[in-house]
């Protein structure tokens, strides 16, 4: 099997999550990519930032056989150009079957530059990659998730950006110690110089855009009142997500019209959609049915929303949601009041 390059992306270790050691969380997206890479070749990690022994050990648990770190001007800033140059340098040496990058705005641009330099195929936002009889097969979604498109690669290396949580990260049975190597990348970054003038964190209160939020918490008629709708906001804040509403909620003025999720309103495709007190009419479903995971909470066991929910709770959302917030706070080891005011 040929090698498969994986671009490492390091997050913060974050708080302890039950049953998961801190280190794994830092490299969640990289571990997902490694799991995919293993299916089609020997995973080789390319790391633009610092990568110490503990990081290498973590990556080996998910199948990394080699780890390349970068020296030279590219190592300084992990800009998209620096990352693409590092990947191209390693790819020219190893001639891999594929290069895997986490799908995101920046990931797409890294992939674009790599694909041009290697003159290779580019497949964006793949939801699955598996080995086929004629080589790897990548699966993408088209038309807002209505169609699944399977593509093969005719020639050269495939540069693939892979959607986050497309795959559950899986450890290997017998991790081997990866060979680490530092490569010198002669950067032509000066020619592509982008100068960052300022970076300002968005204020904690400013919730993500409905269209791009990873989590959407939506309330419907079952919420009952504008006051009770604040509960929806608190749950959204706890998840770092956006607030939405059904047609009924928007009509009542509990949420703004821009937050109305239905066929003619906003269309969302978050990782998690939490439908609270929403019956799930056809027109509402049209706005959210392609969410990756759907959870519904409603009093009525016959509500159509339960037909498309991955998990449903029949009950009073005014009891279930506060209990859920308490449970989340407990698992994060913090006070429930701090859950919705943490930055």
């Amino acid at each position, binding site marked *: 099997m040929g090698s498969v390059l994986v671009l490492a992306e390091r*997050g*913060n270790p*974050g*708080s302890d999550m*039950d049953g998961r050691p801190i280190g794994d*969380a830092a490299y*969640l997206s990289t571990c997902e990519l490694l799991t995919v890479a293993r299916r089609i070749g020997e995973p080789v990690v390319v790391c633009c930032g610092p990568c110490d022994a503990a990081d290498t050990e973590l990556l080996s648990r998910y199948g990394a056989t080699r780890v390349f770190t970068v020296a030279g001007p590219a190592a300084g800033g992990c800009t998209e150009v620096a990352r693409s140059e590092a990947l191209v340098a390693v790819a020219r040496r190893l001639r891999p079957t594929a290069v895997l990058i986490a799908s*995101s*705005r920046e990931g797409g*641009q890294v992939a*674009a530059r790599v*694909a*041009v330099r290697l003159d*290779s*195929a*580019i*497949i964006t936002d793949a939801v699955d990659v598996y080995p086929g009889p004629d080589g790897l*097969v990548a699966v993408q979604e*088209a*038309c807002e998730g*209505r169609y*699944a498109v*399977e*593509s*093969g*690669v*005719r020639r050269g290396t495939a540069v693939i950006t892979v959607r*986050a949580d497309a795959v559950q990260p899986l450890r290997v049975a017998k991790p081997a110690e990866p060979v680490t190597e530092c490569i010198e990348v002669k950067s032509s970054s000066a*020619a*592509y*110089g*982008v*100068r*960052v*003038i300022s*970076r*300002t964190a*968005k204020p904690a209160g400013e919730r993500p855009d409905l269209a791009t939020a990873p989590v959407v918490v939506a309330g419907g008629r079952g919420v009952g009142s504008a006051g009770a709708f604040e509960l929806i906001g608190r749950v959204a804040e706890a*998840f770092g997500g956006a607030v939405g509403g059904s047609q009924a909620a928007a009509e009542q003025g509990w949420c703004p019209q821009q937050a109305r999720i239905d066929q003619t309103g906003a269309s969302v495709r978050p990782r*998690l959609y939490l439908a609270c007190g929403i019956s799930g009419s056809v027109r509402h479903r*049209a706005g959210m*049915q392609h969410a990756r*995971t759907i*959870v519904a*909470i409603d009093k009525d*066991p016959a509500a159509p929303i*339960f*037909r498309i*929910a*991955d*998990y*449903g*709770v*029949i*009950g009073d959302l005014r009891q*279930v949601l506060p*209990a*859920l917030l308490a*449970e*989340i706070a407990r698992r994060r080891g913090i006070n429930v009041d701090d859950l919705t005011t943490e930055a």
Partner: protein
Amino acid sequence: MKIVVLVKHVHVPETPEDPPFAADLTVDRIGLRGRLNEADEHAVEQARRIACRRRDVQISALTMGPAGAVAALRRALVLGADQGVHVLDDALPGSDALATSRVLAAAVRRLGFDLVLCGAVSADSGTAVVPTMVAERLGVPSLCFADAVRVGVDGADGVDEVVVRRDAGAVGEGAVVEGAVVEEAAAFLPALVSVTDRCGAPRYPSIHAVAEARHKLVRTWALADLGVPRSQVGKQAAATVTRTVNPCPRRHAGDVVRDDGHGCGAAGLADFLAERHLI
């Protein structure tokens, strides 16, 4: 100053159920009704605003597409472009992003440029990679997904630069969190900037603008005019091949539990979410 705006003619589905695929599984760009990609309208508008503040700016709209794509150019001319260029060749249908960027870059080079503008994402493919590929081929910096753009002179060196404001990722739990920070970034010209639809809607064109646009020049170039060999474009040169297109399976219901009023519903839900790393 020369600005080239890359524009794309995208099809508009008559109903949400219309699949945009032709029989050979490529995106059907000929059969269905189309319009200028909305994000590209914003790009033309940004070019117009830059031109307002400076002297001697020429805005060219450039598109690669079948005969009907000239409609996108006409719209761009109404919105403020000074001239249009249509790359049209029967070898082009079925071209992938690599080939498209190769052709566009060749045309941009032929036109000459200080700044290339385009919409960040096209409504039909949604891939957002062609702009950066074009920048790579032209050997210039790319500033993508800009919510605001301005062109100024860098005080220290007296050189023109373009400054953008955009959402950027920040290191967060587990990975980079998209859209967590607002970033201001700059690059010296020549450069490429792609814009989102947050950067300001185009003005409704005046009757005068519509009339004037009819007299603006639209040139048509073939591959031979760009020096791009036929063997590098089109379906047969594509590096990927679409094997199958299938409608996605409909969702099935998962577990449904009844809450007992004492938190068992929440506990079960929390377990479900934790299993999927959602909390």
